[in-house]
C-alpha cells in the first residue's frame, strides 16, 4: 500500500473581513481519497475556508496548496476543484443534461464525448433518462443529484460540498448520507464537506475538523472526536456531555483521581493524565456511559469491576425523563443539586418502566469512561 498522499494543504491561512477574523491561522492537511468534514457552529469560519479553497475568497495571510501547487490566487474557474452549492445552484433555464454538461462545454470537450460523460455522470447519481428534463420538474433531492453530477462530471481533484443535506427532509437526509459515502467510495475523489450537523459529520466523514471562532479546535476521526475530545468545546459540540470541574489529586502512569466539588466521591481513572498535580481540570462524561441503578435505603452503592469501591458513583433522584423510543434520557439530581444526564437503551419493551420520576438511584461509570480535559 502506498502511503496516503496529501492533496490539500492550508498553511497558516487567515482571512479577515474588515476587523472580523473569519479564519484564524488555520493549518490543515487533507489526504487523497478522504471524506473530510469541516464541522462547527454557524459563523465559525468553516464556509469561508471552503470558499477559499474554491476560489471565491482569497486568504488575507497564508497559502493554500493543491497537489503542492500554490493556488491561493488562482481564479475559481482554473482550479481543479468543483463545488456542490447549498442551494444546489442548478441553472433553471437549462435542461438537466445541459446543466451537467455545462462545465465540459466551457472546457471545449467535443459534443460526442460530452454526451457520453453526461450519461455516465447521470447514471452515477441514479438519474438515468432525466437528461431532457428541466430542473423545475424535479424534486429538491433530484436537483441535488444534478448538482452532484454536474460537479463530478469534470473529474475534479476535490469535490466540495457546502451543507449538502441541510435542505432535505429527515428521511431523505438519512438516505443521502449513506448514498454520498457510497458514491465517494465509488468515484474515489476526495470529498470535503462543510456542515454544522455533528451527526452528519460523524456518520459520513472519515476525518473531521472541528472549528470555533475561526480557530481549528481538533482534527480527528469521528470516533476519536467523540471519545477523546481535546477541549470542552469539542466535547460539548459533539453529542451530549456532562462536564464536571475538579482538581487532579493523583496522577500516576496507570491511574489518576479527580476530586469534583459537585460529586461526593472522587472520579477514578484507569489511565494517567499528563497534567500538573492539583491542576484544575474538567471531566467529560457521556450520558450513555453512566449506568443507572436502583437505590434502596441502607444498601451499598454498586461497584463496577474496574473501579475502586466507593469511587465513580453518585447518589441522586430522577427529576426528569425524556422518552426517545430507542432510548430514554434521565435527568438525575445529585445531592449537591447538580443535574446529570444519563441515557439508557430500551433493550426490551418493558425497560422504560424500570425507573420512574422522583425515584432514588445510583449513578455509576467505568474507570475508562470519563475524558479528562485540560482546556
Amino acid at each position, binding site marked *: 500500500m502506498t502511503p496516503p498522499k496529501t492533496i490539500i494543504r492550508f498553511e497558516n491561512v487567515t482571512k479577515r473581513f474588515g476587523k472580523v477574523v473569519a479564519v484564524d491561522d488555520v493549518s490543515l492537511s487533507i489526504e487523497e481519497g478522504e471524506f473530510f468534514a469541516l464541522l462547527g457552529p454557524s459563523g465559525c469560519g468553516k464556509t469561508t475556508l471552503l470558499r477559499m479553497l474554491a476560489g471565491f475568497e482569497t486568504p488575507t495571510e497564508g497559502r493554500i496548496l493543491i497537489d503542492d501547487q500554490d493556488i491561493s490566487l488562482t481564479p475559481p*474557474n482554473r482550479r481543479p476543484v468543483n463545488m456542490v452549492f447549498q442551494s444546489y445552484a442548478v441553472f433553471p433555464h437549462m435542461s438537466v443534461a445541459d446543466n451537467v454538461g455545462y462545465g465540459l462545454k466551457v*472546457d471545449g470537450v467535443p459534443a460526442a464525448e460530452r454526451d457520453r460523460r453526461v450519461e455516465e455522470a447521470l447514471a452515477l447519481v441514479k438519474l438515468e433518462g432525466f437528461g431532457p428534463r428541466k430542473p423545475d420538474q424535479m424534486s429538491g433531492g433530484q436537483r441535488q443529484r444534478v448538482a452532484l453530477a454536474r*460537479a463530478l462530471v469534470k473529474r475534479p481533484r476535490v469535490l466540495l460540498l457546502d451543507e449538502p443535506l441541510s435542505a432535505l427532509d429527515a428521511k431523505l437526509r438519512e438516505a443521502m448520507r449513506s448514498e454520498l459515502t457510497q458514491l465517494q467510495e465509488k468515484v474515489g475523489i476526495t470529498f470535503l464537506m462543510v456542515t454544522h450537523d455533528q451527526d452528519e459529520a460523524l456518520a459520513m466523514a472519515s476525518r473531521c475538523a472541528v472549528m470555533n471562532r475561526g480557530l481549528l479546535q481538533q482534527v480527528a476521526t469521528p470516533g476519536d472526536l467523540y471519545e477523546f475530545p481535546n477541549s470542552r468545546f469539542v466535547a460539548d459540540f459533539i453529542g451530549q456531555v456532562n462536564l464536571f470541574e475538579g482538581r487532579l489529586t493523583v496522577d500516576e502512569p496507570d491511574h489518576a483521581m479527580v476530586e469534583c466539588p459537585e460529586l461526593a466521591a472522587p472520579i477514578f481513572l484507569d489511565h494517567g493524565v499528563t497534567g500538573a498535580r492539583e491542576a484544575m481540570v474538567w471531566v467529560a462524561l457521556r450520558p450513555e456511559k453512566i449506568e443507572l441503578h436502583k437505590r434502596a435505603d441502607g444498601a451499598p452503592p454498586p461497584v463496577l469491576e474496574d473501579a475502586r469501591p466507593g469511587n465513580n458513583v453518585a447518589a441522586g433522584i430522577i427529576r426528569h425523563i425524556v422518552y426517545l423510543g430507542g432510548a430514554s434520557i434521565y435527568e438525575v439530581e445529585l445531592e449537591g443539586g447538580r443535574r446529570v444526564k444519563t441515557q439508557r437503551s430500551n433493550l426490551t419493551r418493558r425497560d422504560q418502566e424500570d425507573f420512574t420520576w422522583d425515584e432514588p438511584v445510583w449513578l455509576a461509570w467505568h474507570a475508562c469512561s470519563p475524558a479528562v480535559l485540560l482546556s
Partner: protein
Amino acid sequence: MTPRKTPPGPLDYLNRWPIRTWLTLVFIYLYAPMLTLMAFSFNNDKRNIVWRGFTLDYYVKALQDSDLITAFGNSLTIAAISTLVSVILGTLTALTLWRFRFPGKAALEGALALPIVVPEICMGVAMLVFFTQVVPWPTEIMWPFNLGAIIISHISFSFSFVAIVIRARLASFNRELEEAAKDLGAGEWRIFRDILIPHMRPGLLAGALLAFTLSLDDFVITFFTSGPETTTFPIKVYSMVRFSVTPEVNAASTILIVLTLVLTALALKLQGNDVAREAAGGS
C-alpha cells in the same frame, strides 16, 4: 331546520351579483371610449357624429394619406431605435448598480428615477432648449437621422424605465448560480451570456415593451422636439383633430391600438412562459 348560509370562498365572490355589477361598470368605464372610437372608424359619415352605416372607406383613405403614413413610419422607427438603445443602456445601468459598489451609487440610483417623476412638460421644454441652443439638431439631413433629436429625447426617459425593471429582476438573482458557473470553468463573459442574460430575459422583454409603447404614444416631449419634417403619429393625429374629427382619425387610431395590443400580447406570452417556468421551479 334552515340550511346555514356558508361564507363564500375567495373565488365565489366573483359569482355574486353586486361584484359582477361592479366589475361590469369598471370595464365599461375602462373600455367604452376605446370601443366607441373603434366602432366609429367604420362610420360612413364625414362629420362622424351620428351613425350612418358601415364602411371601410376611411381605412382606405387613411392608408392612402401619405402624410399619415410618413408620420406612422416615423413613429415606428423612433420607437424601434429608442427601444433598442434604451434596453442596452438600461441593462448596463442596472448591471452596474447591481454588481458594483462605488462612490455616488446612491445618487445615481436616485437620479435614475428622475425622468420618471419629472413632469413631461418640463422634460419637453428642456429638450427644446437643449436642441435649439446647445446642440442644434439639423432637420434637413437624410431620414432617419433627422429624427435624431426625438430619438435621443425618447431614450432619455425610457431607458430609466428599462433600468428599473431590470434592476428589480436582478434582485432575485441567486448569486450562487454565478459562482456555480465560475466554479465549472466559465469566465465573466461566458457567465454573462449563459447565466445572467437568460435570467434577465423577462425583465428585458418587459423593459423593451415599456420603452416601445412609451415612445410610440409620447406626445408632450415629441411635440417640443419635432419639426415640420419630422412629425410622429400622435402629433399628426393631433393636427388632424384640430380641423375635424373624421373617421380617418378613428381608423388610424384603431390600427395603432390593434398593433400595440398584438405586440403586448406577444411580449406577455413570451414573458409568461418564463414566469410560469420559474414559478413552477420554486427556488
